[in-house]
């Protein structure tokens, strides 16, 4: 190109003008960045205050569990100082079972979707476990690999215990602690499926107490409750461990006998239960005599629905009752049936 010449005054003036303009713009950019930085620092301070005060456990860590950040609640749980998290591994917080689920379930989802929500069990460093509802968020490197994981965990131990208690209450009888009708029906459903696969029979015993109303009238409801509790205990003690005993309400009980060879087994169980209930006992010094009328129905290939099976056991129970106290009757499909023993 052209040979260098000393610049004239006008050229120098223009260069100076350019330099000034560039400087003004640089200053404006610096001001803008300073303002943004100030706002970011303010926001960071506010976020830090929130993270410090929340009772949720917050961590930012590598995939393998080495933390970059733990909030105060988590430091307190772990018993470490906020500034001294070097030796912590947050994956070690998980119980062995939860750790396996983290590796097998959560991590693949996290890698694919960037987010995982679920529940884990944590082992408290000083013993005991806590149930946590946890959200994991993946932070990726530019090449897409997950570099860090943010975790927000909430202690739901009490909530879980309450839910378990409610679930138990929904399926059990308050007074005796036995299964209720709902749980019985559920078990019956399962037992039928198993029986049809396994080729063995399924029996249902319907039990209605004889003489219960008289006790209730004579000794009061508290005594009546005690009788029901005692009867429940005796039935439980004399039935097979794998069978289900339920209280259907009032003085009605039912037993589900899975895996029986045939009606003979069901009859044998019924006889045993009837004898156990009939043993006299005392309540508040008063002698109490009570008996069980038991209707037996055994499901066969020709038995229709489970409702039919229960209806058959109910019918058989009324037939037993009409034959006197403490009798059993095996439903024979005709409504007449065998004579009680």
């Amino acid at each position, binding site marked *: 190109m052209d040979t260098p010449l000393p610049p004239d005054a006008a050229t120098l003036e223009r260069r100076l003008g350019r330099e000034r303009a560039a400087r003004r713009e*640089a200053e404006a*950019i610096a001001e803008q960045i300073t303002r943004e930085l100030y706002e970011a620092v303010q926001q960071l301070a506010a976020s830090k205050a929130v993270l410090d005060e929340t009772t949720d456990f917050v961590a930012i860590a590598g995939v393998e569990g080495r933390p970059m950040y733990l909030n105060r609640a988590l430091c307190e749980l772990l018993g470490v100082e906020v500034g001294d998290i070097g030796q912590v591994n947050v994956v070690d917080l998980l119980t062995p079972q939860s750790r396996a689920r983290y590796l097998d379930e959560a991590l693949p989802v996290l890698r694919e979707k960037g987010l995982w929500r679920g529940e884990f069990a944590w082992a408290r460093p000083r013993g005991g476990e806590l149930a946590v509802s946890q959200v994991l968020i993946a932070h990726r490197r530019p090449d897409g690999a997950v570099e860090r994981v943010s975790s927000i965990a909430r202690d739901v131990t009490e909530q879980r215990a309450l839910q378990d208690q409610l679930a138990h209450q929904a399926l059990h009888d308050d007074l005796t602690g036995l299964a209720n009708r709902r749980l019985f029906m559920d078990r019956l459903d399962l037992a039928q499926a198993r029986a049809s696969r396994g080729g063995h029979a399924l029996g249902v015993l319907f039990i209605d107490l004889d003489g219960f109303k008289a006790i209730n009238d004579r000794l009061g409801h508290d005594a009546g409750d005690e009788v029901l509790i005692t009867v429940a205990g005796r039935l439980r003690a004399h039935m097979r461990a794998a069978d289900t005993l339920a209280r259907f309400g009032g003085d009605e009980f039912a037993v589900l006998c899975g895996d029986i060879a045939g009606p003979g087994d069901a009859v044998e169980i019924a006889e045993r239960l009837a004898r156990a209930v009939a043993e006299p006992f005392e309540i508040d010094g008063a002698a109490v005599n009570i008996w069980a009328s038991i209707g037996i129905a055994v499901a066969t290939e020709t038995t229709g629905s489970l409702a039919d099976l229960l209806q058959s056991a109910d019918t058989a129970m009324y037939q037993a009752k009409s034959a006197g106290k403490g009798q059993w009757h095996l439903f024979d499909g005709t409504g007449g049936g065998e004579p009680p023993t």
Partner: protein
Amino acid sequence: MKGVIFNLAEEVIVASYGEHTWDALLDAAGLEGSYTSLGNYPDGDLFRLVDVASSFLGAPVDDVVRSLGEGALPLLASRYPDFFVGHASTRSFVMTLNEVIHSEVRKLYPGAQVPEFDFDDSDPTCLLVTYRSARKLCALAEGFIVGAASHFGEQATLDQPRCMHRGDDHCIIRCAFTPTGS
């Protein structure tokens, strides 16, 4: 386009042709020329400068752009030496473009729109670099690669089996590197 690119262009021009040439280019292109590295300026400004330089030098536009990249690389190497240390060859350095270099560029120059590269290093004798950018500045990428090769004491032989300027939807820059003097 970030001001830093204009600053690099200015430094390259001034170093080779003197300050008056930069003045003359700005005048001919009708540009103010007050570029601040962090500022944002129209892409058209750079294309106008390059067009004017092309007619001043009597050289094709792509050659001007390529020399700009080649001349700017030593400036970048002295300004950002960390990106260069730890690499023994141009090949390994070039392959860090997306993940290291441009990810850092985004931090230093917020809002910077950087091109996307893909690498095929299956052939040990040549590296295939796919370039995608609306600016179609594949020649600038070529210049940077040639400049990087000089930095690592290598000679770069480049060609483009595909180019957006020839109607392809992306460019492929085929690079072979050989040690200088062998």
